[in-house]
């Protein structure tokens, strides 16, 4: 009776999937409206049961039929984990909520200092490790579909490559699942939001598969047989079956232990489990109920596994029917089409739930921890500039869902045929088990470092590849079979199933042991010999002390710490004196006396917090105060370490700052020195140029007149004498110039011999003026007028040099005085302990900008290069040098066109009696006619 044509099966399947769509859609709408359907512990517990895949539904019976109780550790492990769920899982949930964790890759990356490398590695391991598991689900659906449509005859699908029906089914299922995951799994942008519709659909599927399996189990146990003891009694009769009553051999026990450990970890670290247990958790109190509800679910779905397995073995003794299909085939054999259909739907629900959830978890992981960070790092993409990345994010997630599902499809259609269902799933289990050490160390050991986690993960993953993945390739013929059987190049020690000579174990136990040995050893070893960055350490404290940190809010701390403790905490950071001041300020601010021995009330706490925040920042202050309130000093150490490091950094940056300031100052100094040096260099060049110029002028005339005399022997005597006198004159000028240069150079170098004596300056001045009388004699019109005070106090001078100054100034005055009515006035008088001498001419005067310049060497008023030089240009610099030596000074006051006044003064000798006499006495005038 062909009641189950493929069209019927397909329609029912589509009806079922349509129902899932409807549930997911309805719940999403409810969630949007703010009335969540899934916000209760029962839905939460049922959604966790996504752990039970088609592997449980069909595979457990298959494994039971070959190993007896060997399938049970997979469910006992999670039961054990959930007993301590309130400590471990709640901690992970708490951390994840605080850090907005979206996937297991995110969790590990975040714990180890937001490491991109770690997040990427975890994502890659998951993407490589999980597709076999997905392929298992696809295979289960296609196989069960293929068997069911053969009803009523039971035909095993041929396990050869290219069975088109199988692959077609797998392909369509892949497409359907991908669309479901995309529609309900990538609706939201923020992955930390909950996929309420998905979770509801998953919970519903958990009910369906449990009901389906229990129906089959009850039917088999109580319909086909007379209860449990009947089945077991009949099985006992067969020695082959009786063997399954016990665990056999060492390898059986080792396998039991390793599977228990594997599944203990898998219940949290499988990407989809992390998604439903942690990310989709709405309220951590739901976990409390799930702690017994979920293990109860596992117990119920496993009660009938052994009876069904034995029933199947008793009903198909010839081995023509694969044990993996007993759940379906027993119902078919007893001509129960509806039950068979229910079993098929149960398997379908188990498979689809897993596929959808796993695809979404992987998509989130890959997009958030692998692709997006990579894209953001590619500067040329200018992703950071974009305002809205949601479109890209969604595209990546959808792409990842498709990719992961098709990888699963690919695995199923090429490699999958070489393994039994259970083994394929366990390969994935071992892959994700690699995450466990990094997570457990991450939440319980502050010392675990990023380098350690990376090393552990990479090492474990490498061994997984070697001991499980590569041999599976070898079995499928992608690699030479001798690799799996004899090791690479025939090296027995490197046989992937008996690495380093560890023989006698099943591949899964073998791989579990080796990957864990390397993973844990590398994690611990590398962590112990590497150090953490600031961020890593603060994240480590954050993760390990997750419970302690978040309990500090509200009134929880009331009465737990005395005010005394808080004040001593404050004193540690402020010092005793400032704490005393703060105390006084507190009492003033709150208008009450502080009882130090009483419990700290909220006023004290917030006051202390504020004071501390001023010193160490608000966040640190909060931690510090919280740590005292909880009286946990070991945490204080940790906090202090963080603060130490922070303050160390502050100190370093301050030092750096002051160093850079010093450098700046030094640079400025150097720049100044450089400018001055360049000035000096320029001066030197100028000096050389001027000296050469000054020397060349007389030399040129001497030379030209000499040449005239040489070349013209018949020159007139009169003319000859004139020429010779010019030569003499120029020679004199030249020697005077050179004398002056030498003189100045000597004075500047300080090698001049000075003959100081305390003397009356008046005779010296008069003598000097007498010496200049020759100048006036030569000049056509210049006259000299002297106004010298009668009595001048003695000064300490070098007579000759003093005379030189006066002669210099007077000869300058003669040179520059009015050409027609030249008048040079020399005044000398005494003022304020100084002898002052003015030399006044009535020439053109000196422009203001030249007044300082003329005291520099070779600088004369006007342009020296075009005008005929009227002196050596060294007279005034020499005067300045001399007067400096005498302790006096020389300066000029002049207005253009009104003549110039050159003044100098010399201090009166200290031992001479000072007489107060001011201004020159004009009665003493003596006008000397210069002609």
């Amino acid at each position, binding site marked *: 009776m062909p009641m189950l044509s493929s069209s019927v099966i397909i329609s029912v399947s589509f009806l079922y999937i349509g129902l899932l769509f409807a549930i997911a859609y309805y719940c999403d709408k409810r969630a949007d409206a703010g009335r969540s359907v899934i916000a209760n512990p029962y839905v939460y517990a049922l959604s966790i049961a996504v752990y039970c895949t088609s592997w449980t539904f069909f595979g457990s019976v298959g494994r039971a039929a070959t190993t*007896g*109780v060997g399938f*049970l550790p997979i469910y*006992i492990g999670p*039961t*054990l984990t*959930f*007993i*301590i769920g*309130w*400590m471990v899982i709640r901690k992970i949930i708490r951390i994840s909520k605080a850090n907005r964790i979206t996937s297991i890759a995110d969790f590990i990356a975040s714990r180890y200092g937001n490491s991109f490398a770690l997040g990427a590695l975890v994502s890659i391991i998951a993407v490589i490790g999980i597709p076999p598991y997905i392929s298992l689900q696809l295979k289960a659906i296609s196989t069960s579909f293929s068997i069911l449509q053969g009803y009523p005859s039971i035909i095993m699908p041929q396990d050869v490559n290219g069975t088109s029906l199988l692959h077609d089914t797998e392909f369509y299922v892949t497409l359907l699942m991908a669309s479901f995951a995309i529609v309900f799994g990538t609706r939201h942008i923020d992955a930390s939001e909950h996929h309420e519709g998905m979770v509801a659909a998953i919970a519903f599927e958990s009910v369906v598969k449990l009901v389906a399996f229990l129906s089959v189990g009850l039917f088999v146990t109580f319909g086909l047989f007379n*209860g*449990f*003891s*009947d089945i*077991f*009694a009949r099985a*006992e009769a067969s020695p082959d079956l*009786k063997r399954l*009553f*016990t*665990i056999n051999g060492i390898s059986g*026990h080792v396998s*039991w*232990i390793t599977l*228990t450990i594997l599944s203990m970890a898998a219940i949290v670290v499988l990407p989809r489990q992390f998604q439903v247990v942690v990310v989709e958790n709405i309220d951590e109190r739901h976990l*409390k*109920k799930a*702690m*017994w509800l979920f*293990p*109860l679910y596992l*117990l119920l779905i496993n*009660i009938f596994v*052994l009876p069904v397995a034995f029933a199947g073995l008793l009903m198909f003794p010839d081995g023509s029917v694969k044990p993996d299909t007993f759940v379906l085939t027993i119902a078919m054999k007893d001509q129960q089409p509806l039950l068979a259909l229910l079993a098929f739907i149960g398997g379908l629900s188990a498979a689809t739930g897993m596929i959808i959830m796993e695809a979404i978890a992987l998509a989130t992981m890959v997009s958030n921890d692998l692709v997006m960070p990579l894209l953001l790092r590619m500067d040329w993409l200018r992703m950071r500039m974009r305002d809205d990345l949601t479109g890209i994010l969604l595209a990546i997630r959808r792409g990842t869902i498709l990719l992961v599902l098709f990888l699963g499809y690919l695995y199923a259609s090429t490699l999958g045929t070489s393994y039994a269902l259970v083994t394929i799933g366990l390969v994935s289990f071992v892959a994700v088990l690699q995450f466990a050490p990094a997570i457990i160390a991450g939440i319980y050991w502050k010392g675990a470092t990023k380098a350690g986690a990376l090393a552990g993960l990479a090492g474990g993953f490498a061994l997984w590849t070697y001991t499980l993945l590569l041999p599976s390739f070898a079995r499928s013929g992608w690699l030479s079979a001798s690799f799996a059987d004899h090791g690479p190049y025939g090296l027995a020690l490197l046989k992937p199933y008996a690495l380093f000579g560890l023989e006698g174990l099943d591949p899964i136990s073998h791989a579990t042991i080796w990957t864990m040995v390397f993973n844990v050893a590398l994690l611990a070893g590398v962590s112990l010999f590497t150090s953490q960055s600031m961020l890593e350490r603060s994240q480590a404290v954050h993760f390990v002390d997750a419970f302690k940190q978040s309990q500090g809010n509200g*009134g929880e701390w009331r009465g737990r710490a005395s005010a005394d403790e808080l004040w001593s905490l404050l004193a540690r950071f402020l010092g005793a004196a400032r704490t005393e001041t703060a105390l006084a300020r507190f009492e003033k601010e709150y208008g009450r006396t502080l009882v130090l021995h009483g419990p700290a009330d909220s006023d004290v706490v917030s006051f202390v917090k504020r004071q501390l925040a001023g010193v160490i920042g608000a966040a640190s202050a909060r931690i510090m105060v919280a740590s005292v309130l909880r009286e946990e000093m070991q945490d204080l150490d940790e906090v202090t370490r963080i603060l130490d490091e922070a303050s160390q950094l502050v100190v370093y940056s301050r030092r750096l700052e002051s160093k850079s300031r010093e450098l700046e100052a030094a640079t400025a100094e150097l720049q100044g020195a450089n400018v001055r040096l360049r000035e000096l260099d320029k001066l030197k060049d100028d000096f050389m140029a001027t000296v050469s110029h000054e020397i060349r002028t007389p030399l040129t005339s001497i030379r030209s007149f000499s040449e005239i005399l040489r070349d013209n022997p018949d020159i007139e005597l009169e003319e000859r004498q004139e020429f010779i006198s010019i030569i003499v004159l120029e020679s004199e000028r030249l020697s005077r110039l050179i004398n002056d240069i030498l003189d100045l150079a000597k004075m500047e170098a300080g090698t001049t011999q000075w003959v100081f004596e305390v003397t009356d300056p008046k005779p010296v001045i008069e003598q000097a003026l007498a010496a200049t009388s020759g100048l006036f004699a030569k000049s056509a019109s210049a006259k000299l007028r002297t106004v010298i005070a009668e009595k001048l106090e003695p000064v300490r001078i070098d007579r000759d040099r003093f005379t030189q100054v006066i002669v210099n100034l007077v000869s300058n005055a003669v040179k520059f005085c009015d050409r027609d009515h030249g008048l040079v006035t020399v005044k000398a008088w005494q003022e304020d302990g100084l002898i002052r001498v003015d030399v006044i001419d009535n020439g053109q005067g000196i422009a203001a900008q030249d007044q300082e310049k003329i005291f520099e060497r070779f600088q004369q008023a006007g342009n020296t290069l075009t005008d005929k030089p009227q002196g050596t240009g060294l007279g005034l610099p020499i005067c300045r040098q001399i007067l400096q030596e005498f302790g006096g000074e020389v300066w000029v006051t002049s207005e253009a066109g009104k003549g110039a006044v050159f003044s100098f003064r010399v201090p009166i000798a200290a031992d001479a009696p000072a007489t107060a006499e001011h201004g020159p006495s004009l009665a003493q005038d003596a006008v000397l006619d210069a002609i």
Partner: protein
Amino acid sequence: MLKQRRNTERQIALFLLGGVMLVPPVLVLFNHPDRVAGIPSLYLYIFLVWTGLIGFTLAITRRMRLDELAARENRQADVEPLAPASVDGHADA
């Protein structure tokens, strides 16, 4: 606080107990093909222990909830904590 810690300790104890009882070598004690009450002794043992673990977990979580309720009442009423006996009445781990 003290009660919370006590409940945590109970969970750890239960976890360790389960870990010891459901794993060799203790498991080996029941690893023989005899049937007890018609069911192979190993199967019966495992499922019984499993059921027991779930039952105790249920009991502990129930206590946790009651302790929390009591603590909340205490905070609200600001009175002395209730005597432990008043919230007992469940199987102890």
